[in-house]
């Protein structure tokens, strides 16, 4: 135990470890708050679809040898998010199929592009690290950390300011529209925020595991709590705790960061599943 603490202290003295912790908790916070809405609106899969779009965009960006990849990935993902959320509104099945199509399509195209045009010698290693996230997170620069902090502040600010409207629109879009709320604007806002969070999270857990950050804390919180505000706050807390401890664990055990965080999330969900079962039985 003592060894572990000294080891941890040693690691924490490196700036890159501190960066990972800061970025990891912030992303966990944003994605869980968003996740509650997405899960309730039956858009859980959108996180998965968009992360694959982001992967495809990244492959294209690296094939084009763009210096700043984020400026390419971000707009592409935002556009995909807007398109997906729009189709999702009209008909259920169509929206569903659209997500699946876009998700698989961009995954395949992304891999193809990487394979054919990549300059790097180790293509499968590159693909693996973008899908499951690994080395990128350890090479975060100070600038990227500040960008992440800024975006998180914006996301959380928007969320707090529009909390009541977000609740009304999520619970009952028809009623919200009838009372004069422009629901289109909120869906657009939701799409943009989702895309931003996903692109941010891609560095941390990789594009395959992003959905886990979005849905697990929300589902855990919903198992045991019965009011919306409680669910939001609790899922944020859960997500932050899970990802913080996941990162620490992965450093101590030298395990892959993304997968460890998700494993912790799954374990926590299982505990809440059982808790919910016993709570509702009595």
């Amino acid at each position, binding site marked *: 135990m003592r060894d572990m603490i000294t080891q941890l202290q040693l690691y924490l003295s490196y700036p890159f470890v501190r960066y990972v912790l800061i970025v990891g908790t912030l992303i966990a916070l944003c994605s869980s708050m968003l996740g509650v809405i997405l899960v309730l609106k039956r858009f859980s899969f959108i996180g998965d679809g968009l992360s694959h779009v982001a992967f495809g965009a990244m492959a294209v960006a690296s094939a084009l040898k763009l210096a700043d990849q984020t400026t390419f990935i971000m707009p592409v993902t935002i556009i995909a998010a807007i398109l997906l959320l729009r189709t999702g509104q009209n008909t259920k099945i169509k929206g569903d199929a659209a997500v699946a199509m876009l998700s698989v399509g961009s995954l395949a195209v992304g891999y193809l592009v990487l394979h054919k045009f990549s300059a790097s010698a180790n293509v499968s290693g590159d693909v693996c690290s973008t899908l499951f996230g690994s080395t990128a997170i350890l090479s975060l620069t100070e600038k990227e950390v500040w960008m992440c902090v800024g975006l998180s502040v914006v996301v959380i600010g928007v969320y707090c300011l529009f909390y009541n409207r977000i609740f009304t629109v999520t*619970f009952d879009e028809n009623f919200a529209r009838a009372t004069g709320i422009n629901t289109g604007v909120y869906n657009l806002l939701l799409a943009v925020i989702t895309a931003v969070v996903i692109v941010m999270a891609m560095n941390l857990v990789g594009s395959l595991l992003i959905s886990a950050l979005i849905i697990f804390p929300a589902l855990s919180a919903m198992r045991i709590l019965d009011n919306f505000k409680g669910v939001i706050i609790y899922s944020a807390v859960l997500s932050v705790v899970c990802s913080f401890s996941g990162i620490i664990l992965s450093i101590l055990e030298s395990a892959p960061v993304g997968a460890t965080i998700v494993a912790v999330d799954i374990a926590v969900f299982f505990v809440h599943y059982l808790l919910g079962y016993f709570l509702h039985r009595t």
Partner: protein
Amino acid sequence: MAYITCKDLTLGYQDGIVAEHISFVVKQGDYLCVVGENGAGKSTLIKTLLHLIRPISGELMMEDGISPQEIGYLPQQTVVQRDFPASVWEIVLSGTLTKCGRRPWYGREEKELASKNLERMGMKEFKTRCYRNLSGGQQQRVLLARALCATSKLLLLDEPVTGLDPKATEEFYELLKSLNQEGIAIIMVSHDIRTAVRQASHILHIDKENSFYGTREEYMTHMDENALHTTVQHKTGDDPADGKKGVDISL
């Protein structure tokens, strides 16, 4: 003065007309039931009344201090709501949102209004309960309380008793009746012609070609004539399904 006056309204979307020649008036204390076949344009009428789509032609006037946002709307339940983790209080409070204007949070007035309407619906002790654990009838009461937070004059209900058991349906109709007697005008869209005729003061029957609007009594004579007409037709070998209509509403 009438809350809503429609003159020769044509309903529809860009790609086509759904229903034509619809005229009706809703005044304070009226109880209007909108009936009609599936696809006749009932939901299009609702959207038009809420100003979510524009009428293709005709006049739709709202007077007497009613704006489209002040219609207390009770939509049909959606899949999303069935397992939504929200307390009764949060849902009722969300009905007061229009009164907040640009303010991001609810003030004391909004909370008092929500509390008052919750009590009015007899749901006060359920304030902290979770919406998804309530019975169908209780859920409808909560949504009615929310609608009452948005209005004090006019309720618009879209098939409100779908999925309720007979007892809850009866209770819900009683509740509507008492609200109506307090002076709130009600527009209810319904499949259920039988109850419509029993409850409402006015009936609007939407039909592709000839829509009917009139008081309950006028509607009954109208339908009887129609039934007579179709029975005669039936004898000469016309569609027998239509003949049922007359049987359905004879009380």
